[in-house]
């Protein structure tokens, strides 16, 4: 029996029979492009002309001085077109869809960043596009819903289950099993059945490749540690990929929500609350009860609010190849505020988790040591959530006035 896509005990392809042939085709196509050196060149070319690659590696001088420890560098995935690392994966899969001759793409989205990226790619490549988004996330991330629709995508709010990211994934699979002849499911993170974890990592590895080259050019040496937030794990795998064979500590930061003790979090690898399980087509650590029913998760950031995690990261966790921490909503907001004020940079709430953990550790490192934080996305999309968290009176007044205008 052929077992595919395993990372230690995790991964695999727990597929309903109806999708087996579709995955065989996808896997074969992916193997083909991996063997083809021209494909990667095409991809890099596309990303440098349509997006902003290579994205800069910014020295955060003020934050470095403020903490008085390690030199802090920020990898600027927020400067990608559409404002997050999500575009890397989406454009790669878009090229693959062209090769497979399909005309329609579907995707799940949590924060809406992946949905916007996917809708953008679909517009550029001329594909039909449907985005599934949990009803709660539709409310949390309205601006992204607006843009997806303007870009020509159909956004379907998902009202099943916990009405967030995992439920959107289930719904996308339900669409796919009906329409796989015409449709490719652009999974947005390094999760799901093989080959998705590997394939998404492959496209996102452009982050780590660039970051490694850039830091060597600027500093002439490798960083001590690199930090990335972990939702499904794609921006983390992207950054980590550049440093797998180096003496660099890889730190993944999960959503600590209201604190690990409260149970209201999405920390699969940094808490003891998750256990190995099989869902959504793959095996990993899931936040689940003793029967195997998935639990509700909590995070201020929609993009980290997920029950599972990349099987590749689960394996790295078990083997001690990466360290996993969590940051609470409260610390995340503080880190976001500090970064805005000190550097004039607005990280997404998701990315701010990586900043929060890096800020805890930077003072303990020496001044000749370097750390890199992956700024997976920009925070503009979070304006409503952040304004609420900061309880900004002027913003509230603006919203009230705006609402009155619509009443008129």
């Amino acid at each position: 029996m052929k077992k595919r896509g395993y990372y230690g005990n995790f991964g695999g392809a727990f597929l309903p029979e109806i999708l087996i042939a579709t995955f065989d085709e996808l896997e074969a196509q992916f193997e083909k492009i991996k063997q083809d050196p021209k494909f990667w060149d095409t991809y890099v070319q596309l990303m440098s002309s349509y997006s902003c690659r290579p994205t800069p590696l910014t020295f955060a001088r003020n934050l470095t001085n403020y903490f008085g420890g390690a030199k802090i560098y920020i990898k600027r995935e927020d400067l990608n077109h559409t404002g997050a690392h999500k575009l890397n994966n989406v454009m790669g899969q878009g090229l693959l869809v062209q090769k497979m001759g399909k005309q329609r793409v579907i995707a799940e989205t949590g924060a809406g960043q992946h949905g916007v990226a996917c809708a953008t790619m679909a517009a550029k490549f001329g594909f039909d596009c449907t985005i599934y988004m949990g009803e709660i996330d539709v409310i949390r991330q309205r601006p992204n819903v607006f843009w997806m629709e303007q870009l020509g995508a159909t956004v379907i709010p998902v009202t099943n289950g916990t009405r967030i990211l995992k439920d959107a994934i289930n719904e996308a699979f339900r669409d796919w099993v009906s329409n796989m002849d015409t449709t490719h499911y652009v999974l947005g993170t390094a999760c799901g059945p093989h080959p998705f974890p590997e394939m998404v990592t492959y496209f996102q590895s452009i982050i780590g490749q660039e970051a490694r080259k850039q830091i060597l050019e600027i500093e002439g040496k490798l960083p001590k540690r690199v930090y990335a937030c972990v939702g499904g794990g794609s921006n983390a795998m992207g950054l980590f990929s550049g440093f797998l064979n180096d003496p660099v500590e890889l730190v993944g930061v999960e959503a600590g929500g209201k604190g690990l003790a409260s149970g209201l979090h999405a920390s699969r690898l940094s808490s003891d609350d998750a256990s190995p399980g099989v869902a959504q087509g793959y095996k990993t650590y899931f936040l689940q009860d003793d029967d195997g029913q998935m639990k509700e998760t909590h995070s201020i950031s929609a993009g980290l609010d997920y029950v599972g995690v990349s099987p590749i990261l689960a394996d790295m966790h078990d083997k001690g190849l990466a360290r996993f921490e969590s940051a609470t909503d409260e610390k995340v907001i503080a880190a976001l505020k500090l970064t805005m004020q000190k550097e004039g940079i607005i990280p997404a709430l998701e990315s701010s988790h990586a900043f929060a953990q890096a800020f805890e550790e930077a003072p303990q490192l020496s001044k000749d040591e370097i750390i890199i934080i992956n700024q997976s996305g920009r925070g503009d999309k979070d304006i409503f959530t952040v304004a609420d968290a900061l309880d900004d009176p002027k913003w509230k007044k603006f919203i009230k006035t705006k609402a009155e205008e619509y009443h008129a």
Partner: protein
Amino acid sequence: MLESYILKKRQQKDILLMTHIVMGYPDFEASYKIVKQMVEAGVDLMELQIPFSEPMADGPVILHANQKAIEGGSTVLKCFEFAQKVAKDFSIPFLFMSYANILYKYGMEQFADKMAAINLKGAIVPDLPPEEGKNYITAMEKNRLAPIYIFSPETSENRMSYLSTHGAGFIYCLARKGVTGKATSFSNELTTYLERCRQATTLPLAVGFGVKDKADVDFLKGKADIAVIGSQTIRVVEAKGPDAAGDFIRSLF
């Protein structure tokens, strides 16, 4: 064994009927009533679904039933107790249907041992293909239980025979693409596909997804051994209550 039961029954009937319930939906008392009604109306086999929070292969009707059952307190333990009771009270074979995680968390071996102990006959686990189910298959074989595999219209001949060698009891043929509970067109295309299934395996064939009335069941006579009614019984019970289950089944003959 399950297969010989099916073959024997088929000598008396043109086609057998298999129905499906989600255990604990709307509650266990109603579930019991539905089973009783159905068995008395002449159902030949039944699938008992242990609800799962992420039922990827299920459409809106069964998805909703899964969620409500879990919210109502349908645990794996209670499902085992329920299954044990119906298997004792009624003489038809009962099968479990669930998703891989429920078995994985319980332990594949322990799950199969438990099934044997409470007299269940087999299981349908749509997200556990043989490639991922080595421990499951071994545990099922050890207990002489039937791991039931699924053919879909997308399944190649090669894969059909591969699935057939790992399966037992019968093969569950999906009438179409998609999830449970959507409309199916009972057409020539379906006939051709079922002929392909027939060629690929000597196991009896069950056909499910979209089978909802007498016309659909009649269509399958001579082409398959078992007609599977899934979402439609849930719809009937939702609309008319558990006591309507028997009349609905009788309307299919």
